[in-house]
């Protein structure tokens, strides 16, 4: 029943899917991995971006990827404001910040979910573009074109962000804050402004990520719940804040999901990322490629 062909199929699709998972997780890798913000609302922000892309595509017939690019500056500003709010109410007051911060973001995620339902309804939504619906054949293998687009854009996005963090001045400043906030303060820089900028970047990449999400498959308002598992699984498995790790961990998740899907069927799909997340947290909480 399970042949080598099928396995090869699953691995190829899994790698493509994995790179897509990296793109939707990379923002969390910055906000949670580097900045230690308990950002449970990250997947909700992602789904919100997808709906914005859907709106632009549906109403003005704009290509989903272009729409994702268009909303990126808005998301950046949204991220700046969100971090400022979080910082003023929780981080600055110190004690108990983590516990209340989680509750805060959980509440925000639910508000976003309901607002989407009130605006767009509970039905699944999808976008239209010339590259959606076609597929690509290599021998017996059929690869949906939309997955290839997602793969290419996601890989580019992930590599770009990794380069930004390692090569540019601001990127290095962000990593410095993650390593030792006090030292950055002593150097005369303002760690809060750097972190705010970083959170803005982490939210801005959700524009493209959200476009990919709705290109790969239709979205519904509660899709963020499934992506809590996927994004946190990837970020924790990667070892908090490691960009190369994020890509590798996402590929591992993608391959694992497609293999389980082919072997046991789609009804087990939601549990895979969460089970892997539990496993990583219990056995190796510092992640596979941890600091």
């Amino acid at each position, binding site marked *: 029943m399970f042949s080598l062909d099928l396995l090869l199929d699953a691995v190829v699709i899994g790698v493509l899917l994995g790179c897509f998972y990296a793109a939707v997780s990379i923002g969390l890798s910055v906000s*949670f991995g580097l900045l230690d913000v*308990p950002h*449970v609302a990250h997947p909700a922000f992602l789904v919100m971006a997808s709906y914005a892309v859907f709106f632009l595509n549906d109403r003005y017939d704009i290509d989903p990827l272009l729409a994702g690019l268009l909303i990126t500056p808005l998301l950046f500003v949204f991220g700046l404001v969100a971090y400022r709010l979080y910082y003023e*109410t929780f981080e600055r007051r110190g004690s*108990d910040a*983590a*516990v*209340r*911060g*989680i*509750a*805060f973001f*959980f*509440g*925000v995620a*639910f*508000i976003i*979910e*309901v*607002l989407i*339902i*009130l605006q767009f309804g509970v039905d699944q939504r999808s976008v239209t573009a010339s590259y959606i619906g076609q597929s690509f054949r290599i021998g017996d293998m059929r690869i949906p074109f939309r997955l290839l687009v997602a793969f290419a854009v996601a890989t580019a996005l992930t590599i770009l962000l990794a380069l930004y963090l390692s090569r540019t001045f601001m990127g290095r400043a962000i990593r410095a804050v993650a390593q030792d906030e006090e030292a950055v303060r002593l150097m005369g820089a303002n760690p809060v402004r750097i972190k705010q900028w970083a959170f803005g970047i982490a939210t801005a990449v959700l524009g493209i990520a959200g476009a990919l999400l709705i290109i790969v498959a239709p979205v519904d308002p509660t899709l963020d*719940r499934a992506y*809590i*598992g996927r994004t*946190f699984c990837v970020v*924790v498995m990667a070892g908090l804040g490691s960009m190369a790790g994020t890509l590798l961990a996402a590929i591992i998740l993608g391959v694992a999901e497609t293999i389980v899907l082919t072997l046991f069927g789609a*009804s*087990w799909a*939601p*549990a895979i990322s*969460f*089970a892997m*997340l*539990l496993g990583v*947290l*219990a056995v190796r*909480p510092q992640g596979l490629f941890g600091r």
Partner: protein
Amino acid sequence: MTKQRGSTAFWIGAVAFLLAVLLATQLIGNEYPFFAGYVILQFIVLSVAWSILGGYAGYVNFGTSAFFGVGVYTAVFLVKATGAPLAVQIGVAAIVGALLGFAVGLLTLRMQGIFFSIATIALTIVIETSVTNWRYLGGAAGIQLQRPQVLPPFHSYVQMLFFVQALLVVLAVAIARYIQGSWIGRGLQALKDDELAAECTGVPTLRLKLLACVISGALMCAAGAPAAMYLQYADPGSAFNLNYSVSVLAMALIGGTAHWAGPVIGAVLLGVTQQLLAVTISSEVNVLVLGIMLVLFVVGAPEGLIGLIARLRPKRAEIGA
């Protein structure tokens, strides 16, 4: 002296509450008030149970829906396999909940803060998916249940469930109240403030955390068990719905977790609001109001209503202490 007098007053209040509930089931013929009230009582039990771990010990459990759902499905399994009566369903659910709580307690060994919270969500989805794939329990489509004959002195099954849930409320509050006043509560408070320091000064942190998880889990599962008979139907999507987790979290935090009365107040307040909104507007607006109130309280009044009241009357609070 004062403690004893407070205790007597508490138990008199508890007995009076149960008598009033019993009397209401005998005098009021209309089923609807009980149908709506049941949900509020259920949320009181859940949020009081949640705050034993989340409030006293500071471990934010997002797995309320896991415990609730396991309670529901324990009852479903028992009814289907053996036709066990309600009391047995609740009892077994409590035992299963205690075991699940123990497992969650072991998680606290390695994770704190957001890692623990995320792990509890993960546990919820993993259990939900397993139940979805368990054909015997109806799978994703759900399962219909037939209510057995109602026991006297009750006239309808919903009224009986209402009374049973009221008993669970008293049980949960009594346990939370006992924990708060005993060395267990003080130990949990100590490990909430600083786990390492507590361990160093001889507080048995692991034992306390396990105890809190077991008690909290048992109560949550027990509260979920009657829901199967209440709805006469169960499906994994609604039994394990994350809305339970966020509602209970919101109720406990809005009421305030420093005192056992906090989650009770929060659950009554939000529960009543939700019932009214669900009837008058829609269930979506319902969740929206819940989310907004949660965010507002977490930002503006971290101590909850209990904290707000204490701040308004600082002098009396000092004398009381």
